[in-house]
């Protein structure tokens, strides 16, 4: 008895099933003997696992019996056709149910299809490189006390010459730098180039096809440039570009040495031109910061290093020597540690999130989240199918009984129901493809980033995945009904006494409905919380005035000319300039030290001019503003905020004026003014120390305070003026409010996706409810008729039929609110420094919406049954 309890009998019967009958006695005997021994030495559970493992390992040709695929033995073709025929008849017979099933399945499958095509596209990234298995990128993990640990896709360029070049396991390496770009001129044309610097090994390592030129030296000499096919035709029309000269503003003359095919969209390296890396080295001779970028281990801003290893097995050794190298580097730097790692080319997209990515990125995590989301929706519709099929099964007991009585085996009945579900899923697939095509524009419209990294193209392999997917969905949806229905014995089914056995599953079905409604309620609540938080963030009073401020990106336009030109526009009240935006999350930092205190702290700052504070209505509490004309000691004057006073213990605003602070780099700052606090960062973070400097060389934006409500005529003038000051770049002008909204676009993207998911889950849940209500009400029509004849009122009957469902809705409400309320109040929102207060309506809205939708569904159907003439239901008896 003891043995029976723990022995994995299912595995034994599985083994018996696949094993050659002549071998079974010997092998099972051996396994069982070992099992008994194992119990003594290892314990019961481990012994059972060892047995299971042994059985699985028995799956080999020498042990397995011959599985001849004999269709007549398993299931003859005519039988299969019969199943399909029955399936089609059944679909026709219950049009409403089939309709609900097909529409529901196709809606959710459309999401599934989008996810499949989207994800499979991600996995085509960089697959076109012939040596992709051997290509690795050096990435750098940086650790310091302030930011903690973060990983950069970049590596210091000097690592290549200082270390990697000596490694034997590296066949070739290419240094790439992303900083190349600017206005490019030929004799006749001016265009913008956006490209990368690369060593000449670029073409040996990557499979970018060089159409013209010599791959071995196209990127050899300084000031060589390789254009893409597209750029060539834009610059030179039909002529060959080889040997021609291109002038790039602020850099110099380049000679075209090659034409490369346009990089495909699914390449993480994107460029419209390639420039020899030696150009960078030549430039560094005369430019100190360039020189620093090439020769410092601490500069991780531009350089990427890609390696071609000669053998994959040497990667581990290479990583080891890289970590040795990084510890040598770490001995020379202060406050930080670096760790160099290798990343396979195929792990870049999709891959983990890194700083300084050279191209588009897609986190594996995001893909997983999307798959789970789609999975939940699909399961939800599969539940619908299961639910409805179980309900309808009551009417099909006779059919099953007859099949069984005529010799149908359990497996055959099972197969019949699975086939039926698969047929429905395949029908749904076609509808789903139409749906997903219609959905694409919507998905693309959510955010630009989506267009950049997804294509949703249906290729041959994707189409195969679709078919497989539809079959799997069919099998999942049909599995439970098929198992339950094929289990019943023919005799009991015919007698009808066993019909009550189906009622056992009523709780399961109720559970499924509750689950679906819970899901849709959660989605609605999440969506409404997001809306609230987004509105809250955008409308928040950040402590500075951003109304009617138009920000124009200078893009190299001369500041003085800009001021002169734009101040002529009557609609422009005042012009200020700044190095960035406040309140959108992009920040620059400085280490600042108060000599009186000792420790230095990281402080955010912004470089602005004398008009900035006035333009943005930031009040000075003490001291004075920057002076436009006093340029002498301008560099070291700063204006701080109130929080700065507190953190650096400077006392009252007036006391702080004139205090001198230092940085570890020995720059000194003198405080000349104190402003009140304002939110310079996104609302996720609280206000901390902040200061303004006046460093015109860092100005990137002009902030135009407009005084006219007539924006359109103002904008026209702005455009005309822009053409006068900057001919290369298009006008990039954004109203401050729009920029702030953009900063919170995360909410918009999330809202777009969640809104869509919500719509789907609500639809699916309502359809499921509709089906089940129709069925239950109909199956009780005789009961209703008799009650009516005996004098029951319509109202009472509706209540009778609906109360179960209403109870279910209440359950769903309770469950979903008790999940989401703590989720938001204790988990998600506390991470935001400023959060919207969740009121009754964020939860109430969803509950009322779902409640009324559900009620309409329920009442409309029950009312129909309750109103029916009793004679119609009873006269057949």
């Amino acid at each position: 008895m003891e043995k029976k309890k723990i022995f994995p009998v299912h595995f034994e019967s599985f083994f018996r099933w696949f094993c050659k009958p002549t071998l079974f006695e010997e092998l099972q005997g051996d396994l069982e003997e070992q099992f008994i021994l194992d119990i003594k030495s290892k314990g019961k559970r481990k012994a059972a696992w060892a047995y299971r493992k042994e059985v699985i390992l028995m799956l080999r040709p020498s042990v397995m019996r011959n599985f001849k695929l004999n269709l007549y033995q398993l299931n003859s073709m005519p039988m299969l056709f019969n199943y399909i025929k029955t399936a089609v008849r059944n679909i026709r017979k219950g049009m409403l149910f089939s309709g609900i099933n097909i529409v529901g399945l196709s809606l959710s499958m459309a999401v599934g299809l989008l996810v499949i095509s989207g994800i499979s596209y991600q996995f085509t990234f960089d697959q076109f490189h012939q040596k992709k298995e051997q290509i690795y990128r050096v990435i750098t993990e940086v650790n310091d006390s302030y930011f903690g640990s973060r990983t950069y896709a970049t590596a210091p360029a000097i690592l290549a010459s200082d270390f990697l070049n000596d490694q034997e396991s590296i066949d070739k390496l290419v240094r790439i730098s992303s900083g190349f770009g600017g206005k490019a001129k030929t004799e006749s044309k001016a265009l913008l180039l956006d490209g990368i610097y690369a060593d000449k090994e670029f073409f040996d390592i990557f499979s970018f096809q060089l159409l013209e030129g010599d791959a071995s030296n196209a990127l050899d000499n300084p000031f060589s440039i390789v254009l893409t096919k597209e750029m060539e035709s834009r610059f030179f029309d039909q002529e060959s570009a080889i040997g021609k000269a291109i002038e790039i503003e602020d850099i110099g003359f380049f000679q075209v040495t090659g034409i490369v095919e346009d990089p495909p969209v699914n390449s993480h390296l994107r460029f419209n031109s390639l420039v020899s890396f030696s150009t960078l080295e030549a430039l560094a001779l005369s430019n100190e910061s360039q020189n620093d970028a090439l020769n410092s281990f601490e500069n991780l801003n531009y350089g990427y290093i890609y390696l071609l290893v000669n053998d994959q097995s040497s990667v581990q050794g290479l990583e080891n020597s890289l970590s040795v190298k990084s510890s040598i580097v770490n001995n020379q730097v202060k406050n930080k540690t670096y760790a160099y790692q290798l990343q396979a080319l195929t792990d870049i997209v999709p891959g983990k999130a890194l700083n300084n990515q050279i191209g588009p990125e897609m986190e594996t995590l995001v893909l997983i989240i999307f798959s789970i989301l789609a999975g939940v929706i699909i399961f939800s519709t599969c539940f619908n199918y299961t639910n409805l099929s179980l309900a309808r099964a009551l009417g099909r007991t006779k059919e099953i009984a007859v099949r069984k009585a005529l010799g149908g085996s359990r497996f055959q009945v099972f197969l019949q129901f699975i086939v039926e579900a698969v047929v429905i899923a395949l029908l749904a697939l076609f509808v789903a493809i139409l749906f997903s095509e219609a959905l694409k524009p919507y998905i693309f419209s959510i955010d630009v980033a989506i267009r950049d990294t997804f294509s949703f193209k249906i290729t041959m392999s994707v189409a195969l995945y679709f078919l497989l997917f539809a079959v799997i969905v069919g099998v999942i949806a049909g599995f439970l009904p098929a198992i339950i229905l094929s289990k019943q014995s023919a005799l009991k089914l015919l007698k009808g006494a066993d019909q009550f056995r189906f009622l056992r599953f009523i709780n399961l079905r109720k559970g499924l409905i509750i689950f679906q409604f819970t899901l849709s309620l959660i989605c609605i609540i999440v969506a409404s919380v997001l809306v609230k938080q987004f509105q809250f963030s955008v409308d928040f009073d950040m402590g500075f005035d951003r109304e009617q401020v138009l920000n124009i990106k200078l893009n190299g336009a001369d500041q003085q000319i800009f001021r002169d030109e734009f101040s002529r526009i009557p609609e422009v009240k005042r012009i200020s300039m700044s190095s960035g935006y406040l309140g959108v999350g992009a920040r620059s930092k400085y280490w600042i030290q108060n000599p009186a205190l000792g420790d230095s702290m990281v402080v955010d700052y912004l470089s602005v001019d004398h008009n900035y504070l006035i333009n943005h209505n930031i009040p000075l509490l003490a001291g004075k503003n920057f002076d436009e004309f006093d340029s002498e000691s301008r560099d070291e004057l700063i204006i701080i905020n109130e929080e700065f006073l507190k953190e650096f213990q400077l006392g009252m605003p007036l006391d702080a004026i004139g205090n001198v602070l230092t940085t570890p780099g020995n720059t000194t700052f003198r405080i000349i003014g104190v402003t009140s606090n304002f939110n310079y960062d996104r609302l996720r973070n609280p206000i901390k120390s902040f200061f303004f400097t006046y460093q015109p060389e860092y100005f990137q934006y002009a902030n135009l305070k407009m005084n006219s409500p007539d924006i359109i005529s103002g904008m026209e003038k702005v455009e005309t003026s822009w053409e006068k000051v900057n001919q290369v770049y298009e006008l990039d002008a954004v109203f401050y409010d729009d920029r702030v909204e953009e900063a919170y676009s995360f909410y918009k993207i999330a809202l777009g996706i969640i809104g869509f998911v919500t719509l789907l889950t609500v639809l699916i849940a309502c359809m499921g409810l509709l089906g089940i209500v129709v069925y239950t009400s109909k199956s009780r029509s005789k009961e209703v008729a008799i009650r009516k004849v005996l004098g029951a009122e319509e109202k009472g009957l509706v209540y009778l039929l609906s109360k179960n469902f209403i109870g279910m809705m209440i359950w769903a409400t309770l469950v979903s609110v008790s999940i989401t309320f703590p989720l938001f109040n204790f988990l998600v929102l506390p991470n935001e420094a400023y959060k919207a207060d969740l009121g009754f309506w964020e939860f109430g809205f969803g509950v009322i919406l779902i409640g009324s939708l559900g009620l309409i569904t329920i009442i409309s159907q029950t009312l129909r049954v309750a109103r029916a003439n009793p004679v119609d239901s009873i006269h057949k008896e």
Partner: protein
Amino acid sequence: MKETNLGEFQEIILLIILSLDNNSYGAEIQREINTELDRSISRGALHTALTRLEEKGFLSSEIGGATKERGGRRKKFFTVTNAGKEALKEAKQLRDHLWKQIPDLTFKNI
């Protein structure tokens, strides 16, 4: 000649069967390999090898008695045939021959 070639695993099995003398049936062989050689092979893998050896004529087998631990199932005992012993001997000779050809110094420091 080809038929008499022995794989490393097959050679081990033959040797183990010989060392087990009269008690060489599947589970026992498996246990012996697992303990003697400290490697874990599955009964399925062993079965494949035994079948192969039997096909080559290096092993013969007979059905033996049942015990209670085996759920009353009978065992299959293996014995090494003369051909099997010959193949083993040949393999050993080949190795010895090769060993002799190695200069003495090679293993001095190991």
